[in-house]
């Protein structure tokens, strides 16, 4: 038995390591697809497609507790006293973020006085090679007062730059189109303060449990991606929030 014991220990460790890795991978995938983290009542998840209703109404894990929103050092647009605060943690190179962008823009236009939108960088460089550089480009534009213009341009032109080997010339082109001081933009994009700002955003998200993009909070509660990507559902959620505030 004593001769076999080390082999048994090694085999147990191997099985535990493989099982642990598989569990981590599974929980990671669950978080990335953002299933089962809904805090919304079932009425909000009504939809035309039965399949999505089933997905949205069957929570697979415990909901995260609501976290008070924080506007410190955040890029925000919309009225400061708006009753609904939408916070997005996004990656400019992430296709789902690009997909959600026009939906959020439409919501902003429709609820001009009722909704305030905040964007924080949450680049995923292991998945998107230009994610950090794009975030820095937006922040560098922000130093010249044009964060949101660059934010919109990066998302709207995502297909133009996301697959290029070197994105910098395209970002410089966007800066030119926005009328930015190019020398300052070039200096700022690689500067320590801009880098720190991006990192702070990321840490802010990490502290709130963000692990994938886009992660959207509404008045501090995380909204499932199934809702955010659907204009009708998102609108219904906002209406419900507004009704609750009255």
């Amino acid at each position, binding site marked *: 038995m*004593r*001769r076999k*014991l*080390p082999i048994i*220990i*090694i085999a147990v*460790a*191997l099985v535990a*390591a493989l099982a*642990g*890795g598989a569990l*981590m*991978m599974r929980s*990671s*995938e669950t*978080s*990335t697809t953002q299933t089962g983290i809904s805090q919304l009542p079932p009425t909000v998840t009504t939809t035309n497609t039965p399949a999505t209703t089933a997905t949205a109404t069957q929570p697979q894990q415990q909901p995260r507790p609501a976290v008070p929103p924080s506007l410190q050092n955040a890029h925000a647009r919309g009225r400061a006293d708006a009753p609904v605060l939408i916070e997005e943690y996004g990656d400019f190179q992430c296709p789902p973020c690009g997909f959600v962008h026009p939906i959020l823009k439409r919501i902003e236009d429709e609820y001009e006085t009722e909704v305030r939108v905040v964007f924080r960088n*949450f*680049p*995923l*460089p*292991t*998945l998107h*090679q230009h994610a*950090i550089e794009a975030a820095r480009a937006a922040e560098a534009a922000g130093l010249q007062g044009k964060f949101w213009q660059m934010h919109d341009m990066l998302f709207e032109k995502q297909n133009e730059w996301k697959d290029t080997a070197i994105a910098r010339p395209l970002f410089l082109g966007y800066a030119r189109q926005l009328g930015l001081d190019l020398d300052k933009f070039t200096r700022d994009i690689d500067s320590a303060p801009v880098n720190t700002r991006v*990192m702070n955003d*990321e*840490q802010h998200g*990490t502290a709130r449990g963000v*692990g*994938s993009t886009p992660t959207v909070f509404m008045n501090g509660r995380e909204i499932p991606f199934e809702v955010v990507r659907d204009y009708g559902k998102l609108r219904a959620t906002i209406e419900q929030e507004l009704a609750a505030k009255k």
Partner: protein
Amino acid sequence: MSEPKARVDEASAPQQQPEQRISRLYALAAVLALVGLADAIYLTVEHLSGRSVRCSVTSGCSEVLASPYATIGDYPLALFGAVAYFTAFSLATLAAFGSQRAGTLFAVLAALMFATSLWLVYLQAFVLHAFCQYCLLSAAVSTSLAVIALVHRATRATDASSQIKS
């Protein structure tokens, strides 16, 4: 009859103590290798799932883990680390149960892992100018494994010389 037996026990007692010490050292190495294994598995999973690794102590996880040094071909470096730590764990376990060949292989592997860790810490400090806490933990573990291998060598050398003297 009982007297000679007592003499044999007294004579063998000093020889058993260093063996126990070596066995304990290898057991400690096995536990440390498990810590390194968990660390490497975490980094591998995070890399494969494309998630941004959460850095709570240092602030350079993204820079380090997204750098070209974090992968070998299409595979994350952490995956190779996981294989190395599991091998180190297996060898240390076998050595703890008395396999001298496993002990020798463990020492070679620990030296290689220590050299790799030195190189990776150098890259973080002087090339990337950013530190990733999980990489630093891995470096600390592999350094500890190398120290254990060295202490083991020193213990064996001391025992050998004391046996020659006696």
